[in-house]
């Protein structure tokens, strides 16, 4: 009699259970569209924002959904630019929406991927979670740190699973690093370096501009959203990362990745002091600097230094320096090398890595189990504070201070 595995009530119904039309009357004002995990118990997904990153997520999700074991399906997409809508429909076969809110109204959609420009992140994620959907939110979490703080509240209140899309956080090396650091492998952690460098003749973020884009096939007002009102400008639409109105430049686009996984390794913390420097040295066609560095000081007495140029590729090695030893991220895993002064006390350690679900898979698993995903809202928020204060430090030419207890800029 007891044989739960493999036997469902559906089996003995032999054939599709007739679901009789309900015609529910009455206001159901209390519920946030409770989704029923139903037939085949697949997770139904929508993708909001099908630009280059969005389309890439779309492709990989559609590919994944072809394997029935994955139990997912992409059923809807949304964008405000017609050619991207067409492309998204082609890739996924899902229903296409112009207004993302209509996509969110669908009771059958469980979860959405949000890959819109930064200044839309907070709004779309909030709306999605309040509509009962779990969210994969592309990085940076938000445009400003205040938005991130509010978003943490929304996650808690709506009990949604929100993964912020800094994929490197699902790299096991940073989790192993955290364990080693907590066990004292480095002694007192002092400072950490990370960098993100590129070079090009064209200029970073100078993506192709479709000559055919015009106010008829591109909803300019919708692109702007809450950003400052400006006349229709193709340059701003296709190359939004260059402009303060929509982006934080290197800080939000690139350092967010770096700092997220470093925070996982070091243990997430609010910063107490952030200062930034750099400038527009070569790429003069933008608001944001092409060379940009940040120093973040943390209350537990250590610093993180992040360096970047979009005009030279030479990186600064990613090292976590402790008083007694230094951690190197070298394939195949992590190597901890003691300082000369401490060679006798601690040996050189090499740690191999274990496989982990990809960042997206982790999100999908957490949707089912309701566990907290890898880059959870609280950690992502702490990262956002440091990142956004770096932007402000640069723009105001001033050292930014933060009160972790009160969660306020001092």
């Amino acid at each position: 009699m007891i044989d739960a595995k493999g036997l469902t009530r559906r089996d003995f119904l032999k054939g599709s259970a007739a679901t009789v039309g309900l015609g529910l009357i009455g206001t159901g004002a209390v519920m946030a569209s409770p989704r029923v995990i139903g037939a085949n118990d697949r997770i139904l997904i929508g993708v909001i924002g099908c630009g280059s990153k969005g389309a890439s997520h779309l492709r990989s999700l559609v590919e994944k959904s072809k394997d029935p074991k994955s139990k997912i399906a992409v059923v809807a997409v949304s964008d405000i630019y017609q050619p991207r809508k067409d492309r998204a429909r082609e890739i996924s076969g899902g229903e296409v929406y112009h207004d993302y809110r209509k996509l969110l109204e669908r009771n059958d959609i469980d979860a959405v991927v949000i890959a819109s420009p930064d200044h839309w992140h907070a709004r779309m994620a909030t709306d999605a979670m309040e509509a009962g959907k779990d969210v994969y939110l592309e990085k940076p979490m938000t445009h400003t740190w205040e938005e991130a703080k509010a978003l943490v509240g929304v996650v808690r209140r709506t009990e949604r699973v929100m993964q912020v899309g800094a994929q490197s956080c699902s790299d096991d090396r940073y989790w192993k690093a955290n364990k080693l650091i907590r066990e004292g492998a480095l002694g007192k952690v002092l400072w950490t370096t990370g960098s993100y460098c590129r070079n090009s003749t064209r200029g970073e973020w100078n993506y192709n501009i479709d000559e055919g884009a015009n106010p008829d096939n591109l909803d300019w007002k919708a692109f702007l959203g809450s950003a400052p009102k400006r006349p229709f400008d193709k340059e701003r639409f296709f190359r939004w990362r260059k402009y303060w109105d929509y982006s934080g430049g290197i800080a939000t686009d690139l350092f967010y990745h770096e700092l997220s996984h470093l925070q996982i390794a070091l243990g997430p913390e609010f910063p107490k002091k952030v200062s930034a420097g750099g400038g527009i040295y070569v790429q003069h066609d933008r608001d944001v600097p092409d060379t940009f560095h940040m120093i973040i000081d943390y209350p537990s007495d250590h610093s993180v230094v992040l360096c970047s140029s979009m005009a030279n590729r030479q990186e600064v090695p990613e090292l976590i320096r402790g008083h007694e030893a230094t951690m190197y991220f070298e394939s195949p895993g992590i190597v901890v090398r003691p300082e000369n002064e401490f060679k006798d006390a601690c040996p050189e350690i090499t740690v191999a890595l274990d496989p982990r679900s990809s960042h997206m898979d982790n999100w999908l698993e957490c949707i089912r189990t309701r566990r907290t995903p890898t880059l959870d809202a609280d950690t992502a928020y702490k990262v956002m504070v440091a990142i956004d204060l770096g932007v402000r430090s640069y723009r105001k030419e001033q050292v930014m201070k933060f009160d972790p207890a009160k969660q306020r800029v001092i």
Partner: protein
Amino acid sequence: MCSTNPILVRMKRVAMNCEFELVLCGSDRRYLIDAGEEAFEELARLEEQLSVFIPTSDVSDINAHAAERPVRIDARLFDLLLLAKRVSAETGGAFDISTGPLVRRWSAGDDHGGFSVPTSEEISQLISKVGMKHVCLDQAAITVAFDRPGMMINLGAIGKGYAVREMADLLRGRGIDAGLISGGTSTVYAIGHAPDDDAWTVGIRNPVEREERLTTVRLRDRALSTSGGHERFTEADGVRYSHVIDPRTGRPADALLIACAVTSDPAESDALSTAFLVLGVEETKEYCSAHESVGAVLVPVPAPGADLEIIRIGIE
């Protein structure tokens, strides 16, 4: 379903102080009866939840404790209270489930002849102590609280409509797509249409000549609720004081003999019919023009000797 050789089954049950009736249309008699029985079981359960005469009911629980602390209820009942609050707000307070003390004052002495017309002072006193504004609904916690002691709610003016609605949902869920569900003379809901017609035709009884039908309304997946002030009243010195009290003035609503509301949600139509009775003709017209999906049938109190006038708003 109801097309070839339709069978009509009629079932009755007493609940909430009135007779509920089901007229169900289908092709299998046994099946209709079984479905009807289930609907009546649900009705009994709802009565247990709503009745102020049952000490363990949810409403009794609220009345006993909501002034001390927020009382949790299930989401379905909460939804009903939200509806009550909304109708209250949208009708400027003409509908109010918390006016118990006010109503009681106007019916006090009913059976023993000890009635006296309340003074203006008494009335303003009573009004200050009641009102939906003192009922706090927390949507996140799904709780009800009163912000002052002495508050009581009574779902009598919306409960039958609610029961009709829930029974209709259940019956639809059992595959019944044609039928009439009614709770006393208060509310009737039409599922689908009658076998040989494209709607159900429902009559409104003439309140004066009770054998006569005053007028009819055609319903299809809609509800009709009726409120009358003429059936319950207190008489003193030759004057009749209706028990239907206007929560805004604290005095009996006396402009209309009957007010009917027609909308798609029976609970809403139940509440609205009470509101319309209080609002009178002009304000009901205003309400209906602001709410497209709501219709009304009103019968003003006639001048002595005059015929009854039937005013249809938004209904052919």
